[in-house]
């Protein structure tokens, strides 16, 4: 059904694309990390990227969030091109992400991790901040309230004052997701959110992500190796191998795809 390079598998009349990658290619020196990647994620969807190690999954995230500038191709978010923008600008436009290895602001409190993420959503200029002006105080109060609400709603309210580094691993993962949510994104990218978790924790994480998606009406794109999580949650899966999209469609389609089996299991002789 879907082979290499064939990605037009979506039914016509689907929701408008929140994110669209058009022929994205990335070189690192002479190494080609991604080759002509095309896919699009409709708004409101929970999509997954899977693929063997080194397939270029995290590179896709890094390109979307502006860590690297694509060597070739376009990345379109809500109808406008974002490739070449600075990371903070992309975040301000509404794409947030987490990292494969948790990257919290370790020495800051849980609350401050989330408040720091409000940076782009605050309307305060430097002079107002330096001189403690009314607008600065009002904005601070608003952000503090909203951050506390977010933490309370998603089960971290009790540790708001703890230092992020002191949280147990599972909560650090969640805090990282909430920090991403603190930027008020419309698209959130999760890089292996279930890495290092046991089956029970994965189940909790899945319902956490689903609830977050629903309550904050997010589009979610995640990278994951845990097939249970991907197959159980994602309505749309993109499979990468050696920097190329080898399958793109619903979990059922992807599961049945011969190319995917081959990428994961090797060629049957």
């Amino acid at each position, binding site marked *: 059904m879907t082979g290499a390079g064939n990605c037009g598998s979506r039914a016509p009349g689907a929701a408008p694309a929140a994110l669209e990658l058009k022929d994205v290619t990335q070189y690192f020196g002479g190494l080609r990390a991604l080759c002509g990647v095309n896919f699009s994620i409709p708004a409101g969807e929970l999509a997954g990227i899977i693929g063997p190690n080194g397939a270029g999954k*995290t590179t896709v*995230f*890094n390109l979307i969030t502006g*860590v690297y500038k694509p060597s070739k191709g376009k990345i379109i978010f809500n109808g406008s091109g974002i490739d070449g923008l600075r990371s903070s600008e992309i975040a301000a436009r509404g794409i947030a992400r987490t*990292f*494969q290895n948790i990257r919290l602001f370790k020495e800051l409190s849980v609350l401050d991790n989330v408040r720091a993420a409000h940076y782009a959503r605050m309307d305060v200029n430097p002079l107002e901040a330096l001189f403690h002006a009314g607008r600065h105080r009002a904005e601070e109060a608003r952000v503090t309230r909203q951050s506390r609400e977010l933490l309370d709603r998603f089960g971290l309210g009790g540790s708001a004052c703890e230092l992020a580094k002191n949280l147990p691993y599972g909560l650090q993962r969640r805090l990282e997701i909430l920090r991403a949510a603190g930027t008020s994104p419309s698209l959130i990218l999760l890089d292996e959110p279930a890495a290092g978790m046991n089956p029970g924790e994965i189940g909790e994480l899945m319902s956490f992500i689903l609830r977050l998606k629903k309550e904050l009406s997010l589009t979610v794109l995640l990278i994951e190796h845990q097939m249970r999580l991907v197959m159980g949650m994602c309505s749309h899966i993109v499979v990468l191998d050696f920097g190329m999209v080898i399958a793109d469609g619903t979990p059922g389609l992807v599961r049945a795809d011969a190319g995917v089996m081959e990428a994961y299991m090797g060629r049957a002789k």
Partner: protein
Amino acid sequence: MIYFFQQALNAVQLGSVYALIALGYTMVYGVLSMINFAHGDFFMVGAFLCFIGAALWHLAFVPVLLLSMGGVTLLGVATERIAYRPLRNAPKVSAIITSLGVGIFLENFTLGLNPYPKYVPPLLPSLGFNAWGVSVSIFQLSTIGISFGLMFALHLIVNKTKAGLAMRAISADRLIVPLMGVPVDKIIALTFALGSGLGGAAGVMYAMAYPVIDPYIGIIVGWKAFISAVIGGIGNIRGAVLGAYILATVEIMTAAFLPSTYRDLITFSLLLTLLIFRPRGLFGKAEIQKV
């Protein structure tokens, strides 16, 4: 033109002194990723040991050189053991501040012992010859020759011995190396010993070239050597040597052809420009952003 060659010779001589010191900075940085700000003062102690050997004990050149190198080696190893080792797992900045503290201590301790600048008597006969109009002294030749010799010896140690291999391994990954059975403490001590020994030798060369010494010579010369290491890409041994000769050439040539007060201005402006375009020096590897 003869003037130019004369200055070029001076540049090679000064560059050799810088290079010996820069090697100490860069080696310690290589294994500990820590800037040892006391290193310039190790060099200064070397110059003072040279004074002690030459003026007080009336030793000849080679014993003085050995005295300085040995004394500063001990100082370096002791400093590492007492002040730096307890901080190896502390925030990096604490170690840097400690090294600043050790430096200030060495300066002022030496100052307490020697309140007045000291004059180092000449250790080598002031013989020389004239090569196509450029006057070359025995002293300049021996400075350059000994520096080259020491650098070559260091090259052999780092690249051809087991200890050198361990050093390079630690600089690549300090956390994993102990698991391979490498005695990290010993190797770090050895690194300090080698780096400090070279600094001691530089102290002798400097004291012979500029015989009036005071406890603060380590600051400016030390920073210059440090900058050499940065120009080359700190942590990179060949880079440090090359950086030292580049810096010395720039300094000597600006002083030779422009008002000498412009020397620091031009040197540091060049450094700043270099760092803006090559933020990690000439040979420093670009920092890989791992996300």
